[in-house]
């Protein structure tokens, strides 16, 4: 075998080179010498000093991170599986409804308004997360570069859109039955765009991609989602009781 190159020795040092080098090093003094020189250099790099952190470092980091975490928790995570989140929303709305009713029946001051408020809050949190997710998927499509060799694979966005359509339908129906027409109408418009995405082939041609983009951009849907999201956040903040 020829002498080992510097690159081979570096790879060998990091355990990314076959036994071949090891065998060669055993039999070749010259290469052994250059390997040892390399070892000394790379071992000395380990002396790079990193300042010590105090004993309570972990706790300190957590305290600061926790303060900055997004406030809505449980539903945000559920929203990864949009349909599960929407179904959970149905459950929560029922809970809120029955909680409101038994509260009334137990003789406390009956307040349909309070009941409605709880339900609206639950809906707003869920819709906020739904919009965030929708925005991500649509933005990815709107900003995707032109397909290089013919077709662009949008199967990921598509599967996401299919899930979102289902969830969107449930939120829309919930909003409508809660008498929140504005939210219901907005979700109706969003649903049409999501359906479009879901119904495309998973490989789109430049022309089809162009149509999709026009559908997203032409309706100004991303902008509307943004506006609506911030409204939702405000409504949520206004009802600032903790969620769940």
């Amino acid at each position: 075998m020829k002498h080992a190159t510097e690159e081979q020795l570096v790879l060998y040092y990091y355990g990314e080179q076959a036994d071949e080098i090891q065998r060669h090093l055993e039999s070749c003094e010259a290469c052994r010498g250059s390997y040892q020189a390399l070892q000394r250099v790379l071992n000395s790099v380990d002396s790079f000093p990193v300042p010590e952190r105090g004993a309570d470092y972990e706790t300190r980091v957590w305290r600061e991170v926790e303060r900055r975490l997004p406030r809505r928790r449980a539903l945000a995570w559920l929203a990864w599986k949009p349909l599960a989140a929407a179904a959970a929303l149905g459950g929560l709305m029922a809970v809120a409804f029955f909680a409101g009713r038994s509260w009334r029946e137990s003789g406390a001051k009956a307040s349909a308004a309070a009941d409605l408020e709880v339900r609206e809050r639950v809906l707003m949190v869920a819709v906020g997360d739904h919009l965030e997710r929708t925005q991500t998927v649509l933005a990815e499509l709107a900003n995707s570069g032109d397909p290089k060799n013919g077709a662009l694979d949008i199967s990921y966005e598509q599967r996401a859109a299919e899930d979102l359509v289902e969830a969107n339908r449930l939120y829309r129906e919930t909003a409508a039955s809660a008498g929140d027409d504005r939210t219901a109408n907005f979700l109706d418009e969003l649903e049409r765009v999501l359906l479009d995405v879901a119904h495309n082939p998973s490989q789109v041609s430049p022309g089809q991609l162009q149509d999709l983009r026009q559908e997203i951009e032409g309706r100004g849907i991303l902008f509307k989602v943004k506006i609506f999201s911030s409204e939702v956040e405000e409504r949520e903040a206004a009802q600032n009781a903790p969620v769940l």
Partner: protein
Amino acid sequence: MQSKGSMEESDSVAVARVRAGDGNAYRVLVERHSRAVFRLAYRMTGNEQDSEDVVQETFLRAYKQLHRWEARSSFSTWLYRIAANYSLDLVRRRQRHGEVAMTESAGERETDVVHALASHAPGPDRLLFSDRVQQRVAATLDGLSRQERTAFVLRHFEGQSIEEIAGALGLSGNAAKHSIFRAVQKLRRALEPLVNSQS
């Protein structure tokens, strides 16, 4: 101390709990990895305050992107990738603002002093010598390009494979490999006269 296997296992259990809405489960992950993320950030940025920023931002980003993590890769590898990328952003912004403190030439000027020190053998000078090595390493790392530094730090200190590094940096395997080679060459040029005169 837990073995790496069971540690990774409980990482994914913690992730599952966070996903299920248990906010406290995230605390486990933050506390478990905060020191390691700080070390990585410091090796990337060489700056204490920046490294603290990286720690915060990494855990916030990871929380928001937790749905993207797939259990087949290790959670810590994924987390360090986020940290490395944010460190890169930070260093890039600093460089754009011309705030780089150390340069290669600052390192060069020291060579003679270091040689002089190295030839004085044991005793307190020896301590001084290791300080010199540390300074030299720091100066050389600062002189690397961003890509070289990231690839090298991930390979050398974090033990990530070249394949993982290529994935993290969006490079081909070959490009990742060559970034590491170039980093090693620069370190060799800066350190070899020093460390090999000692042995």
